[in-house]
């Protein structure tokens, strides 16, 4: 019989190793899934993990890695701050949508005027949109003690409806022949979040993601606020005695994650996607939850995890077109990853002992 014994200290080695073990286990379980779907499992796994990086057309896919990874990292960094303190913002998808709407709205308000200050204004209003949307669960939690998980999630569905109404109404392209969706910001120079080096995939969102990683690292390791976040997560009662103000922490964590999610939405709508449309959002806000956990809620870990998750997106696309692998299979694959990660986390906090329990 296998018995669990709590470790006095979480194992650092296992904490680093579990994400790798989880990825391996997911590859095996995913391979089985692909086999059930009638695809060659080895071929599928190779297509997902190898093709985008080193395959024949890797020169085309590598920039995509940055494009897909940046929003995931940006959102996950924000989420991780709250998750560390036990503040669960699950509504990043809604904040992402609102950031995109505010950002795009600001840009379209100037159309067709060209000026250098339009893009910075869009960045600010995108961040503001996400922040504003996150302030709703934050203020309700601070003021009334409302559950932030449920409120932030409900707001995702509200934001989706709002997005639909905007792309059919206020932001609809007047020259769009009646089709829903806004003007394409890629064709509006002052508002376009173009590649900084053409064809590299390196747009302002990637820069912002890297800055966020550094900023979060410094905050968590060198700043009082970061210390308070960590303390609240590990020992809430002790944190109270140490003078941590929970309300301020809630406002900060939700605000920061909303802001980053809003920025991600804004960079996406003004760059790779280009257009506000009804189904503009593709679930980055939810996938970022997996990224945050896979990265161990650590900024550098999140950077790596974001890259990995971007890889599964791109590899999944390739597998879809080359092998006819259904797109939902990748979603299942990503979900499995989180499962295995949570399961193997057991090894971080517990020792497995074989044998019968001793009778005390």
């Amino acid at each position: 019989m296998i018995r669990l014994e709590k470790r006095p200290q979480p194992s650092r080695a296992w904490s680093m190793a579990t994400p790798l073990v989880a990825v391996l286990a997911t590859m095996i379980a995913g391979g089985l899934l692909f086999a059930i779907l009638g695809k060659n499992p080895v071929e599928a796994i190779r297509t997902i993990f190898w093709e985008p990086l080193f395959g024949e057309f890797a020169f085309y896919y590598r920039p995509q890695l940055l494009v897909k990874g940046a929003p995931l990292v940006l959102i996950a960094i924000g989420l991780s701050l709250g998750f560390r303190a036990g503040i669960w913002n699950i509504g990043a998808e809604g904040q992402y949508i609102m950031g995109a709407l505010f950002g795009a709205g600001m840009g379209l308000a100037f159309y067709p005027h060209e000026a250098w200050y339009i893009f910075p204004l869009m960045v600010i209003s995108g961040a503001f949109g996400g922040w504003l949307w996150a302030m709703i669960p934050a203020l309700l939690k601070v003021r009334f003690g409302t559950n932030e998980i449920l409120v932030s999630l409900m707001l995702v569905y509200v934001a989706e409806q709002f997005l639909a109404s905007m792309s059919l109404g206020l932001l609809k392209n007047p020259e769009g022949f009646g089709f829903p969706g806004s003007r394409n910001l890629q064709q509006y120079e002052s508002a376009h979040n173009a590649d900084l080096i053409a064809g590299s995939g390196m747009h302002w969102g990637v820069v912002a993601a890297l800055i966020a990683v550094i900023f979060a690292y410094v905050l968590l390791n060198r700043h009082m606020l970061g210390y308070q976040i960590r303390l609240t997560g590990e020992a809430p009662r002790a944190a109270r005695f140490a003078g941590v103000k929970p309300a301020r922490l809630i406002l900060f964590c939700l605000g920061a994650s909303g802001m980053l999610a809003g920025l991600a939405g804004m960079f996406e709508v003004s760059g790779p996607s280009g257009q506000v449309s009804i189904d503009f959002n593709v679930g980055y806000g939810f996938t970022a939850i997996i990224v945050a956990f896979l990265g161990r809620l650590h900024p550098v870990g999140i950077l790596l995890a974001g890259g990995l998750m971007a890889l599964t997106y791109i590899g999944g696309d390739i597998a879809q077109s080359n092998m006819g692998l259904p797109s939902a299979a990748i979603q299942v694959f990503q979900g499995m990853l989180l499962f295995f990660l949570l399961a193997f986390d057991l090894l971080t906090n517990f020792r497995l002992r074989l044998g019968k329990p001793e009778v005390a």
Partner: protein
Amino acid sequence: MDLSAINPVLLVASLMVAATPLLLAAVGELVVEKAGVLNLGVEGMMIVGAIAGFATAVESGSPLLGFVVAAVAGAALSTLFAILTQFAQANQVASGLSLTLFGLGLSALMGQSYVGIKPPQMQDIHIPLLSDLPVVGPIIFGHDIILYFGIALIAAVWMVLKYTRVGLILRAVGENHDAAHALGYKVLRIRVLAILFGGACAGMGGAYISLIRVPQWTEGMTAGIGWIALALVVFASWKPWRVLLGAYLFGGVTVVQLNLQAAGVAIPVEYLAMSPYLITIVVLVILSADKSSAPAALGRNFHASR
């Protein structure tokens, strides 16, 4: 706009149909939470139940069999949650989320060949005379069997929790797992059983959406109903009959909103469609002041070592 086109009798009857998936999922989650476990995977279990039930009903021609399979599928998915939280000691919030993310993907994968198909219809129970009564007939009589099953389930859960030894043990585990363990109750086993029950209820709730309420399969068709069910448990202060009340309230909002859309009210459709979610938030705010009735060990993991 023509509000006179809205028939109040039909409104109430369809409100009961709209409320049933919520009611089933919420009463299951109530039992889970009473045992001290917070399973945020309701949405995932519902959508898997929705496609499992739908596929079974289409293949076998029997909607009732669909509901059975949906319950099994929901319980099977919740087993994963049980393993993660009860044996691997994983964080309940994170595990529940992963269940939802996984369930949404899995259901999309399973449902690919079922888009655009009509499922076999569930027969309404037609009792001569009673069903033909004006007003009362269509409201109280003449629904499908699952709707009545949902209401009976509420009554059963209420009775079990309030009057039986099983209910007492379940509540003890949810209030103080250490004390329950010291008394010799198998905390983990009881919690796992509660989680399975919750999964089965959520699965049936999902199948009710795909087989009766909407009768078709579309990806992500639960559209947050699982999350509203979670909110409903808070709304009900963990009391079964208030789950019924809450579900009918939310069902009412949904149906009125749809009726207003159909009647062509001057409010844009998107804003009407937002309303159930907004009202959920408002209700949460009003009721969150009172947390006294929440099970004391809710969301805390139990490990029997010292």
